[in-house]
């Protein structure tokens, strides 16, 4: 079912967790709420679920106003970071819980409950664990059981709060692929919260990037990675080289250096910050070259088809630390350049994105 979030505001004391957030999510998609901790993503998810109430704004689920509805009437399945499986019940009873607490006239018969629980156990491929207690399961198994429990009540929307946050890296990776497959099978509208960009980029159909209680950008993983819309989106997603300076005609003046740019919608002398991906940054070894930011080779890391070159800025230190840059370069180009540690070079960017400098 589709979810619409309209002008939602939420404050905790003086802290504004959500600042006029509006968002429309089409049905059937797997959506990631991505952002650094404290950006309001979990609060937003909990407001959609009805576990938290908004100070202002509306939540519509499938076009119907759900703002005043209690969580138990919203028909949302919620999966918690720490599973929240009932400890005194077996795996079977945990999954059956949502069916057993239904009002008497809606409650399925015992045989029907058995049938549905077994179907869900098959779906999460853990049928052999049905008589275990949650304490006897591994983290990944617990989260799959928690998911089966949430699906048992046939929710319209599935909401997952950092579902893989408490798992180790390998299980995380397995489980998020599994979640993707499960979603492709069930096509239930799902929203999951994560602070892990790799997770969001890999699993989601659509990413909602949040920062400081506001939405920075909504888009497909490809759009979010390739066309970051804001300064924050650039710095949060993927590796990026940052150049701060002022506009000087066709150049960006960074300290003593001039970096060519390809945008003209900034006024002369305006302070801007430029972002370039490591693979869009190039190293110029020619000592005659005057354009580009001066830097010194720090380390060359060769592994696989592409190599990474780490560089230190030549300019003065800022805030006690030198600026570091990273360049991704094909192995052939690397051998052609014949770089040596400590060698002085210049950096240019094939694709430099400029934003007004807020800092």
């Amino acid at each position, binding site marked *: 079912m589709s979810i619409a979030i309209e002008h939602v505001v939420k404050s905790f004391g003086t802290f504004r967790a959500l600042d006029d957030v509006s968002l429309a999510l089409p049905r059937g998609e797997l959506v990631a709420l991505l952002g650094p901790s404290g950006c309001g993503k979990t609060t937003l998810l909990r407001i959609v679920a009805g*576990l938290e109430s908004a100070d202002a704004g509306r939540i519509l689920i499938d076009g119907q106003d759900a703002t005043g509805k209690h969580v138990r009437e919203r028909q949302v399945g919620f999966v918690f970071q*720490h599973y*929240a499986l*009932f400890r005194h019940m077996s795996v079977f009873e945990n999954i059956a819980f*949502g069916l057993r*607490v239904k009002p008497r006239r809606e409650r399925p018969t015992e045989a029907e409950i058995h049938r549905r629980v077994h179907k869900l156990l098959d779906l999460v491929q853990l049928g052999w664990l049905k008589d275990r207690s949650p304490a006897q399961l591994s983290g990944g198994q*617990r989260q799959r059981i928690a998911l089966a429990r*949430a699906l*048992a*009540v046939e929710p319209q929307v599935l909401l997952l709060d950092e579902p893989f946050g408490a798992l180790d890296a390998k299980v995380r990776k397995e489980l998020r692929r599994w979640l993707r497959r499960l979603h492709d099978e069930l096509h239930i509208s799902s929203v999951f919260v994560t602070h892990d960009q790799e997770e969001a980029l890999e699993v989601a159909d659509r990413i909602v990037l949040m920062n400081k209680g506001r939405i920075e950008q909504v888009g497909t993983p490809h759009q979010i990675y390739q066309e970051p819309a804001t300064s924050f989106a650039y710095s949060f997603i993927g590796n990026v080289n940052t150049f701060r300076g002022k506009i000087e005609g066709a150049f960006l003046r960074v300290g003593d250096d001039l970096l060519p740019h390809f945008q003209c919608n900034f006024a002369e002398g305006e302070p801007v910050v430029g972002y370039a991906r490591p693979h869009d940054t190039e190293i110029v070894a020619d000592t005659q070259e005057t354009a580009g930011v001066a830097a010194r080779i720090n380390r060359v890391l060769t592994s696989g088809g592409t190599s990474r070159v780490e560089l230190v800025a030549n300019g003065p230190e800022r805030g006690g630390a030198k600026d570091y840059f990273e360049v991704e370069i094909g192995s052939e180009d690397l051998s052609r350049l014949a770089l040596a540690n400590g060698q002085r070079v210049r950096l240019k960017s094939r694709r430099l994105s400029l934003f007004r400098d807020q800092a």
Partner: protein
Amino acid sequence: MSGANRVLPGFGLSLGYTLAYLSLIVLIPLSAVFVKAAAMDFERFWSVVASERVVATYKLSFGMSLLAASINVVFGLLLTWAIVRYSFPGKKIVDALIDLPFALPTAVAGIALTALYAPNGWIGQILEPLGIKIAFGPYGVLVALIFIGLPFVVRTVQPILEDFDAGFEEAAASLGATRWQTVRRVVFPALLPALLTGFALAFARGVGEYGSVIFIAGNIPFVSEITPLMIITRLEEFDYQGATAIASVMLVISFVLLLVINLLQGWVARSTPRAI
């Protein structure tokens, strides 16, 4: 496994210390009671411990202790819930007040309760016209035992409830459970082992209580005499054997009841896995 291979060292030392300490503090004094009582021949023993007046005190002491502990479980849980789950002005004071029955000399508690519940006391004078007599009767015993047993329930349940993650209740609600279903099926089973412990402690304390009860009970033979009072009476008559005979019966009954409660608790704890 041999001692040298143990991961946690000090098993021999700690077990030895435990046994020596328990023997010195608990077992030797208690066995002295049985040794002294065993000096009587059986007929005399039986005539002391099974006399009608003494049997009436067993019924009162154990009956009222069980009843008071049950009442404390219900209201102690409510109190704990209020203290843990809500914040209200004076919460810290309420929290501190709960421990007061621990600290107060029991005689002071008994006199204070008597003053309140006597027919001319603040509460007594309201209840008197309604035909309810608290002080100087069996219900006086009950009131005193509720008073002294309350902290045991609250203090055993409180840490468990404080650690109980709100996520469990949120999960139950998101699965469609009503508030009552959530409390009954999710919260209560988690608190049950702690409630049983609190019950056992409150009960044990109630059985042994002397100071506060004798002031409020009125100590009427066959009506409001407790077993500890019977023992003291025998001691005052220099009938030491009679006193130890009654004490040994009391010990056995208490031990059996506590054992049953502990077994029950163990069974509940096994069906409620803790670690997750």
